[in-house]
């Protein structure tokens, strides 16, 4: 069962997304900040990370920086799922090697789930 890590401080959003992804038969882990996410990574390497950018303690940018420094984490596909839609943010995180970037309000959960599925499929076929 593919493992999806959702890093999102807005629990309301992460909860419903978890439900949606579980419908797709994924194992979903929820954390509310980068710090906690790193702890999860220590135990388990997820197949896809859905990462919010604006979070307390450790935000998405810092988290990305951290994982890109750790060879074991470097190749984990990351879909940035945020409400920031400024080009500077987009290009910043894209330069940090994220797989995709979505603005939460502009996509349906289905669209997001499809992106996850696509990545998982791509991974398994490799």
């Amino acid at each position, binding site marked *: 069962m593919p493992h999806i890590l959702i890093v999102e401080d*807005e629990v*309301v*959003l992460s909860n*419903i*997304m978890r*439900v*949606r992804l*579980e*419908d797709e038969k994924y194992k979903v882990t929820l954390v509310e900040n980068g710090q906690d996410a790193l702890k999860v990574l220590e135990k388990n390497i997820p197949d896809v990370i859905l990462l919010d950018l*604006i979070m307390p303690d450790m935000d998405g940018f810092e988290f990305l920086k951290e994982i890109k420094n750790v060879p074991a984490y470097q190749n984990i596909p990351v879909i940035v799922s945020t*409400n*920031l*839609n*400024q*080009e*500077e943010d987009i*290009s910043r995180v894209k330069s940090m090697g994220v797989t995709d970037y979505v*603005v*939460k*309000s*502009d996509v*349906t*959960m*289905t669209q997001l789930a499809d992106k996850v599925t696509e990545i998982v499929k791509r991974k398994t076929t490799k």
Partner: protein
Amino acid sequence: MYPLSSMTIKQKSVLAVFFVLTLSIAILVLVAVPMQKSIMERLIITSTNSFVQKQLDFVGLLVQYRVDYVVDHSHILNTSPILLNSNNEFDKLSNVQEILDTGDISWRGDESPLIKSVMDNVLSSELILHFKDVGTPVQGTYPNIFSEVFVSNKYGAVVAASNKITDYNQSDEQWWQEAKESGLYIGDVAFDESSNSYSLTIATKIVDSDGDFLGVLKAFLSMDTLFETLRNYDIVDNDYPSRDIILLDSKQNIIFPREYEDNSVVKTFLSTVDLSNGAASTDTLRSPCVEEHEESCIYSHGHLIKFKNLEWTLVVSHEEDILLSSLKEFRNVVVIMTSSLIIFSLLLFMTLLLGITDRLFDLLSVIQKVSFGDTSARVIVGNSKDELGKLSSGINTMLDSIMRSKVLENTILQHIHYGVAIISPLGVISFANEALCNMLGQTTDIIGIKYEQVLKFSNIIEPEIYVSDEFITDVLNKITSATKKDIYLVNKLGTSIPIECSVASIVDKDSSIIGGVIIIKDITEERRIDRAKSDFVSIASHQLRTPLASIRWYAEALLNGVGGIKKPTAGQKDYIEVIYDSTIRIINLVNSLLNVSRLEVGTFAVEPKETVLKEVMSEVLEGMKPMVEQKSLSINKICDPKVPNVMMDREIVGIIFQNIVSNAVKYTRQNGKIEIAGTFVTDPNILAKIKNYKGKTGILVTVKDDGLGIPLKQQVEVFSKLFRADNVRTLTESGTGLGLYTTKLIMDSIGGAVWFESEENKGTTFYILFPEGGMKERESSKKLQFVE
């Protein structure tokens, strides 16, 4: 070429006055003097005539009275008691009657100086008395009026004589007979040897109380007195001394002066003069009087006496020069007077003129000072109330008013927050206000230096790239104006100030460029505010998105039934769909607002790539497919193959197409028709009609619908923010009111154009004109977002 035009007023006026005065003198001398001369001559002739007449009267009287006295005293001889009652010698004459009768005169043969003396004395004293009575001027006594006197009896025998009695019978003499017959005989003037003088012979008969003939009295009237009198006329009349006085007898013989008697020159001249009447004549004559004199003379003549056979004529000549001396004097006076007048007039005129020209020079110098910028210069008016005084006051008033407006201008220019500089056609700064100096960090005066030395610009997005100051040079080369937005002014201290720079040519009345004005607006604050606004919108939109995403996702979850939740019933589904659609509308609104904010700040990114417009349009239409199908709209697409591919930001083109086409789709009724056309416009006449469009060609995209149309009265507001037409508001169709506003902002920013034609209930046609050059790249952190 025109010396007059190069002369000063002073020179011209002096010349004019000199000319006028010289002309008047010339007229005076050439016309007035000859006229005056002729008048003078006439006056002189008249006065000499009267003078001659006076002389004639006098001389005439002198002779006449003498003759009369001789006649009268012939009677006295008969009756005079003086002669009868005298001493011894007089006794001898006691009875002249008797003596005359008898011829027995005891003193016969004796010289009788006594008788002569008596007769002389009696006659002369009587004559003097008479002349005194008649008021004729007499000088002294008249000695020897009669040079000789004879008395003869009725037989012709001399009975008495002033000299020796000659013993011959006088009755044979013609004079004796004539005296006896007619009572009076007057002879010629002849030289009498006995008295050694010229005399006139007069003979008169002596009669008794009964009138019987007694004898004849013969007297020689001495001409000495007359000649003396005539000679003295020159002395008498000093004003007009005569050159010659000539007395002629009836036979034209010269009686006086005797020295002319045989002068053939005088005689010849006199023969040429018409002496028949008393008129005066002027003749230029070589003077016959004195050989060495050659003056021209004026001759006057008149009859001296007309008595019996006595017809004497007096000719008087005056030297013309002397007579006309007063005219000469007059001429001299005229010349002197007019010369003095010229000098005086010139002096007066020069004084006046100098006063005027000096003041004009004052005016000129003030005007020059003012033209060099010294507006404090004023004309000194003083108490002058004349035209120049008024002009000076007028100029001062004008200068005051200029000064006031200059002060006002300066105050405005100095205290305005914009940096203002005025440059000469060569680019030298002639004025710079405080704000500009502050912006430039220049403490020293920048006036007099070339603008390019202090005004340096750089790109606001890439500050290391300098921006050419060509737009400033342009206004000095041709009449134009320009505004350069969003550039940095790099000052001396290396600070970059975001500015907006407006430049314009300064043009004089002849449309020649006399400089340029540069106005620099520091837009730091505007940019800060814009940024803050933009940031606010960004943050707000971010904050809004989280709850909006929640609503969207949960509504989606409900609709689709996630995590074991059952799918909603048909009724529930409708309601949840409303929630879902409304959320989408809010999200679109938020995104649109973000776009608008970025457009307004003008800092959205443009990433041009070669774009096939047809493809973009197809993609947009694809997105609208559900609605198009729902409304059963027929969409007709035509694209001119000439439409080139251009460098454009696909996403921005998409946003524009989306805004225009979605309106057409939204506001067209069921089964409506939409025509979309792409054409390549090269006709300059068409392009020239498009406001603010500067391109030479363009790609025109036309979107025509037969929908609701825009009410005429609202058509002016179509491109304003949050505009929604009244006739569509009532419809349930969604719309942010930002689409056309966004489109307009984009088209303006890329140098394109958008406009429309619409008629309510008939439909609307939107025109989008893209510049042939496509879009220019612009880097920015902010991208415009496609809003469905």
